[in-house]
């Protein structure tokens, strides 16, 4: 395929996506399921991609995602809750003196949330990145739990409000002429573009080399400690931003917003999308969120067909079906949706071509078979 046709295709696809997104806004009401699924899907897509950068591209199996998201979310919440609502939020423990008159604009809060998560990653990275495979996973898992327990602990109560959590977090607001609905998509798109640029540059290739073979990568002059730290810090930066976006979306955070299950949910998205494929993670994020929060909801409602009571259908049943679907995916479709490949027009072109030739082959076979009968 030529470069020009590819570019035209890309522009068309981007325009189509944009039109669909605008349609999802204009054609639905504020309480629409589609709207919230798309927004949440975008936030999870960012979280999944940041996890994929570490787990799928650098080969470092981390389970600390929820911890870094919690750091981002709490940092954002603490810094941006409006001054006049602070008394209401911190009604039990009071607010720390330094924070009393502090309320940063959302964009600054987002950046600081990312930087804070990155700083935590740099801090613990020096220690945990010496560990290999399972041990690294366990150490990062421990970190996530420590964060969750620390934010709910009493010494930090005047900052994080203990187990009561923080509320009145500013949500998405209109950005000039752009309605608030589009803000998370813009932030996520910017972050994803940066990540795509990163995985496609020389440093991204070095990350992949570490995933493929650490010893060979080091022998080829790649400084393992430096590159692993870079990957860990960058991944955490975006995880922090995803956490902050989640805080904006929910409007309130507690330590229980970031349980171990959150990490596993994101890991599932990464696995379903394909470890080592950003586009896979994005597609899987929307699919999983839509299935979990929306499409499978029908299974949660007790249903009668005529006088027949459909068995099993009751609150929580969708999670059973969801889990079974996941098991099937992992058993029979281990590569995930995209494997290690990224979306490309060449890929689609080749797929269509191979389908055509297969059809042609089938036709020829059919013709031959027909000929056989005639004879």
């Amino acid at each position: 395929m030529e470069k020009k046709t590819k570019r035209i295709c890309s522009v068309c696809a981007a325009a189509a996506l944009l039109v669909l997104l605008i349609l999802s806004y204009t054609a639905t009401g504020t309480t629409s399921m589609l709207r919230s699924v798309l927004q949440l899907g975008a936030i999870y897509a960012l979280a999944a991609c940041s996890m994929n950068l570490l787990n799928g591209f650098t080969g470092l199996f981390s389970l600390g995602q929820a911890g870094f998201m919690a750091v981002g979310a709490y940092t954002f919440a603490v810094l941006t809750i409006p001054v006049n609502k602070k008394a209401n939020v911190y009604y039990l423990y009071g607010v720390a003196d330094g924070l009393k008159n502090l309320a940063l604009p959302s964009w600054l809060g987002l950046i600081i949330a990312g930087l804070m998560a990155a700083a935590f990653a740099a801090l613990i990275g020096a220690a945990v990145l010496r560990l290999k495979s399972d041990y690294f996973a366990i150490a990062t898992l421990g970190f996530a739990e420590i964060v969750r327990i620390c934010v709910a602990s009493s010494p930090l109560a005047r900052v994080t409000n203990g187990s009561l959590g923080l509320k009145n977090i500013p949500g998405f607001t209109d950005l000039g002429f752009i309605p608030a609905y589009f803000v998370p998509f813009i932030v996520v798109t910017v972050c994803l573009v940066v990540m795509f640029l990163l995985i496609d540059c020389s440093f991204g290739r070095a990350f992949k080399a570490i995933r493929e073979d650490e010893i060979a990568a080091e022998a080829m002059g790649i400084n393992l400690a430096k590159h692993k730290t870079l990957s860990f810090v960058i991944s955490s930066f975006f995880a922090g931003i995803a956490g902050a976006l989640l805080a904006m979306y929910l409007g309130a955070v507690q330590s229980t917003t970031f349980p171990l299950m959150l990490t596993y949910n994101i890991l599932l998205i990464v696995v379903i999308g394909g470890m080592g494929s950003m586009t896979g993670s994005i597609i899987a994020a929307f699919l999983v969120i839509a299935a979990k929060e929306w499409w499978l909801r029908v299974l949660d409602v007790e249903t009668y067909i005529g006088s027949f009571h459909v068995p099993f259908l009751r609150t929580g049943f969708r999670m059973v079906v969801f889990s079974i679907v996941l098991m099937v995916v992992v058993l029979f479709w281990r590569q995930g949706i995209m494997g290690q490949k990224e979306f490309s027009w060449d890929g689609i072109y080749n797929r269509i071509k191979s389908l055509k030739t297969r059809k042609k082959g089938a036709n020829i076979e059919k013709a031959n078979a027909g000929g056989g009968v005639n004879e």
Partner: protein
Amino acid sequence: MSNQNVLRVCDATMQFGGVVAVDNLNLEVNKGEIIGLIGPNGAGKTTAFNVITGVYTPTNGAVEFNGERVVENHPQGKMKEMYRGQNDGKYKDVKVLTPDKITKLGVARTFQNIRLFKSLSVFDNVLIAKHTNMKAGIFADTFRLNRAEENRMKEETMELLRILDLAEHKDDVATSLPYGKQRHLEIARALATNPKLLLLDEPAAGMNPQESDDLMKFVARIRDDFDLSILMIEHHMQVVMGVCERIYVLDYGALIAEGTPFEIQSNPKVIEAYLGVDD
């Protein structure tokens, strides 16, 4: 040929627990030479490579590259009592560069059991090695502020693939190549780091006589084309004898002979180590 050392291994001893894998190895590679390192299985050849490239820290001894000390160590801690090698006390410093730093200085290697970046393309395998000498930082690189450098890296990679007859396979996955080509690719990848010294670990392993003969011609060619010095481990005696200027023979970790291929062939110690002798 000038008499300038590219590589000097001084009294290197590598002891794992009570086992002395490399015992007091002294070895020199001069500029432009092709040197063979041979010995029976388990003689410590690959361990010697790992000491030179910084994968292992020697228990005692030093390694110099272009006159610069890149590795130096002496028995410490628990090893102090366990040490069974020689020259204890001769080396005082502790300096061990990590493999990537040694590669940056100009020592590249291949592996005995091929270690390619398996699921990446042939082109990417070589391009990744170019990352070693990249100047731009991660920020400039991500936001494409170093287009010129990136393009130069890609051109040089393509050039290398052309020289090594891999250009037609450039988009293939590394592991889909036939075995001989994979060995070529490993050498291409090592060359991409702009080395001055190339360490080849059994480059002809698993090849038939014809293929290994071609490989040796190829090794001689890249030595001239890339202005290299080469140190190689090899089992095929014919091959080593054909291409190497000097040969070192290891047995049970210790050097038992060194000299020209002709001298080695008639050395009774070498014959004993390889074939055994009747009592």
